[in-house]
């Protein structure tokens, strides 16, 4: 993750999508330890070219509370980035958030919450379920993603939770966008008309 947020990082592509504007911030309280950007591994997911995305992996998203604790504990990571289609065509139409590897015991949980612009829809996966959240939205050429991961344990209880991996994928529509078709079509008709006039 530290590579992705470096000022020298200008963006990267997976399949037909460009990922830019990465932001990473962390915080922690109680027994929680802040997870450094360098402890988060970002793995491009190319398994399905029509549904590209990322795996986010870290062994540090772990927190535990004990019966003697008079405070709650957590570690939190906020991730932001922008996804664009390289062609500029509005082809992104859905987002899947998946909690892949995790654990939770007692009064503790791990949770990934996410909001995506422009639709403002919210996604959420949690160690208590759901583990997969898939939603569609009107096709767009640009998405601004705000994501939050928290692993927390309630003080005064013997509890622990962890998230080792979660994933995010953006699929796309196969057909060109209607407006582009109309523009292209009108151009063809106009060309034909011009040629006939000559």
């Amino acid at each position: 993750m530290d590579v992705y947020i470096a000022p020298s990082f200008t963006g990267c592509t997976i399949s037909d999508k460009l990922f830019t504007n990465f932001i990473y911030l962390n915080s922690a309280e109680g027994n929680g330890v802040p997870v450094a950007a360098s402890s988060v591994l970002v793995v491009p997911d190319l398994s399905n070219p029509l549904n590209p995305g990322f795996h986010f992996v870290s062994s540090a998203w772990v927190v535990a509370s004990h019966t003697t604790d008079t405070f709650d504990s957590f570690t939190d990571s906020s991730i932001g980035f922008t996804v664009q289609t390289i062609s500029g065509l509005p082809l992104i139409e859905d987002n899947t958030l998946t909690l892949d590897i995790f654990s939770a015991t007692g009064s503790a949980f791990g949770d990934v919450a996410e909001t995506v612009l422009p639709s403002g829809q919210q996604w959420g996966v949690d160690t208590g379920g759901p583990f997969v959240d898939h939603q569609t939205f009107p096709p767009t050429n640009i998405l601004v993603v705000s994501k939050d991961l928290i692993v927390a344990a309630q003080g005064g209880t013997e509890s622990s939770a962890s998230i080792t991996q979660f994933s995010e994928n953006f699929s796309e529509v196969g057909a060109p966008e209607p407006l582009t078709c109309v523009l292209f079509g009108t151009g063809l008709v106009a060309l034909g008309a011009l040629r006939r006039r000559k």
Partner: protein
Amino acid sequence: VLVKQVDMSQSLGGVMKIKRFTIQLGLLALVAAVANATPLCTSDTWQNYINNFQAGCLVGDKLFSNFGISASNVPASNINVSPDIGVGFEGLFFSSGSYLAFANGTKDSTLTYTVSAPGQIISSSTLTMAGRITSGTGVITVTEDLQQGVVDIPGSPISVSAAGSGAATLDFVGAGGTLQTVLNVSTQIHVHANASSTATLSQITETFTQLAPEPLQSVMVGSGIILLSLVSRKRRNR
């Protein structure tokens, strides 16, 4: 002959363009020199924004200043802030895991600052949150109050919540045509978990756009005009 004339007028226009370009470059350098006096907003805690950037810091071409916090049971040193520069917008990206509430817990804060776009007009503000009621029931709301001086601008405040939309935009042009150059922003964060419930909010973005023609549209209109002029010239030549 016609072609030559066209060439000459183009080269004349070219000289004028170079002159204008030089003047613009000079102006730009002047603006840049003034802007250089102001530090860039960095990734830091809200407490350090309050301590170090009272006079203001820049995110892209926008100036953020007058940072403050009130009515808060989360310390400003626990709230992280990063500049957020996206495609066509600039703003602040807030993050803190401290807005975490277990059984009957509540976390509240009001964050305040001023945003201005020197030499430009701010045309919209977008608020987003990422948070969830992870078990049981509770409330998560973030309300962004946008004021000119101490008066709400039309359409303000805007809010997002766990129960509703995670994003809200106030388009100043759409809200009665009151374009802004300086905005006072006050953001109220409220997180509450009911009995045997958990609620967490840890991310907020507040971004602003300025008035600028939409690139694609201007390219289309521009190419249309060029095409029209080409066609009419061709007709005249005949």
